[in-house]
């Protein structure tokens, strides 16, 4: 694998060309091209599409098998530059686990030491700031084993926020968060994204709709969409409607609370025998489902 100097000038971002990652004979990533700059970018895809592998490659946790990669303008394959990347990186892995006997403060303090964050007082101040950011300050001396799942998720997020990261990689960050916390999370990430690059991998499409000005869709290790959420929605226009009768087999649809059916299809005219058919404005979720063809019947 070779890496070139960053020609795009994305010193705060990511540049990948032809990124490939294999596990044995299986290709988890197949030739990903990517440029990321400041702002929030959503990463969508089915389970096993390669989202976590991509995030781990960008987070310097996995080496790419082939391709060029530059993170924050540095080469993650060179040890000194990898360490420099890690100093400015925030990474929340999927289902993070912790030392259960640690307190929330103790865990973040440990992580801050690992991130080489200053002297004790400055480090503690940063830990307090991160705990306040995720609304866990009042629980700072509670042992992690006594925190709820949502609180642990927020603690993982706080760990990712330590060190004023220029690149924030979040893998399913809103799992287990209640609606209030999700709003708070969105606010926090939006603020960070003014100066930092944020890549948000999620199945919560409403988070992408609320936060991201750009969305990437992965399918079987390939990038099948890279553009604005509105652009993805526009692709679905005229292909989403509601009707009273259950559509025939083979057409993606689901039953709504009022008993009607929401139908996604190649084109309205391709679905025969529709009764009370009403075209509706597609949501980002509709558009994503149409793109990946992953609606359960």
């Amino acid at each position: 694998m070779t890496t070139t100097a960053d020609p795009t000038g994305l010193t705060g971002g990511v540049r990948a060309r032809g990124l490939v990652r294999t596990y044995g004979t299986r290709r988890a990533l197949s030739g990903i091209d990517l440029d990321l700059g400041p702002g929030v970018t959503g990463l969508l895809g089915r389970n096993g599409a390669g989202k976590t592998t991509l995030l781990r490659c960008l987070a310097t946790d996995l080496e790419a098998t082939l391709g060029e990669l530059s993170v924050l303008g540095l080469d993650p394959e060179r040890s000194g530059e990898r360490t420099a990347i890690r100093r400015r990186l925030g990474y929340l892995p999927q289902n993070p686990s912790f030392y259960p006997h640690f307190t929330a403060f103790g865990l973040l303090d440990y992580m801050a030491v690992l991130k080489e964050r200053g002297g004790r007082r400055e480090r503690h101040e940063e830990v307090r700031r991160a705990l306040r950011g995720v609304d866990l300050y009042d629980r700072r001396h509670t042992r992690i084993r006594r925190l709820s799942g949502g609180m642990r998720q927020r603690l993982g997020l706080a760990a990712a926020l330590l060190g004023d990261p220029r690149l924030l990689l979040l893998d399913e960050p809103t799992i287990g968060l209640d609606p209030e916390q999700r709003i708070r999370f969105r606010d926090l990430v939006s603020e960070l994204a003014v100066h930092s690059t944020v890549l948000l991998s999620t199945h919560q499409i409403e988070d992408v709709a609320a936060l991201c000005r750009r969305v990437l869709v992965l399918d079987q290790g390939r990038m099948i969409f890279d553009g604005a959420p509105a652009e993805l929605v526009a692709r679905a226009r005229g292909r989403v409607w509601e009707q009273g009768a259950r559509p025939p087999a083979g057409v993606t649809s689901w039953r709504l609370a009022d008993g009607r059916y929401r139908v996604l299809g190649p084109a309205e005219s391709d679905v025969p025998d529709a009764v009370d058919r009403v075209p509706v404005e597609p949501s980002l979720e509709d558009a994503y489902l149409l793109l990946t063809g992953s609606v359960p019947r």
Partner: protein
Amino acid sequence: MSWHLTHDQLHRYATHTADDVTAMSAEAHLTHCTHCRDRLPTDEAWLEHSWANLLDVVDRPRPSPLERLLGTLGLREGTAKLLAATPALYRAWLVAMVIVLATTLILAHEIPRGTLLFSFTVPVIPLAGVALAYGRGVDPAHSLASVTPWAGPRLLLLRTCAVLAPALTLCTVASALMPSVATAYEAVFWLLPALAMVAGCLILGRWLHLSVAGGVIGGGWLLLMAMFALMEGADPFQLFSPLAQAGWATALALLAAIVALRMRTA
């Protein structure tokens, strides 16, 4: 209060230029006089700094006994924190190590081939500790820690030291209690092979999960032992003979050089 500090007295007190008598007198007066306290110039930066220091003293978590001990031994606060946070498995390993050493030591005293069993178990104990000290699956917070600047060889080496310190001490004590051991040299007969195996494990850890690397090296050691035990005319204790020790020392020097090189380039 019938009198108040002059502007000059207040200024000299606040800037620490007053003589001792004046400063003590001013301080005693300020304790009781709100009027003069209000006139005392406020240094916002100093106040903020002092408050942050005070908050940190009140609010910071109490260090664990191990952290305090490591601090007393002169380790930096951050390093002590990293060592004290070594996975819970590490504590389980310490307990297992004591049990294995005690059991094999008793067998060495009680059964005819017990000495052989002890001699071949002891070098593997530090290896087992190192193999379980770092990596995905053995460290609960590894997924968070693995992308920090400390992750990789630096943290691995630190944890290796944390494992080796108690392991080498306990193995030396147990060896000194062996029936056939009379001198200090005889009590560390296992040291060079043990360290060579640990270094080999650290090198293999570049390509394999550390616990797998430990398993490979430990398996190789068992195979070597079995070969010497089964070969006609061969004595397994030849693996600890002076000639073999020279071989172990050479292997250790080479492997340690590779580990050091890897540390420099990693």
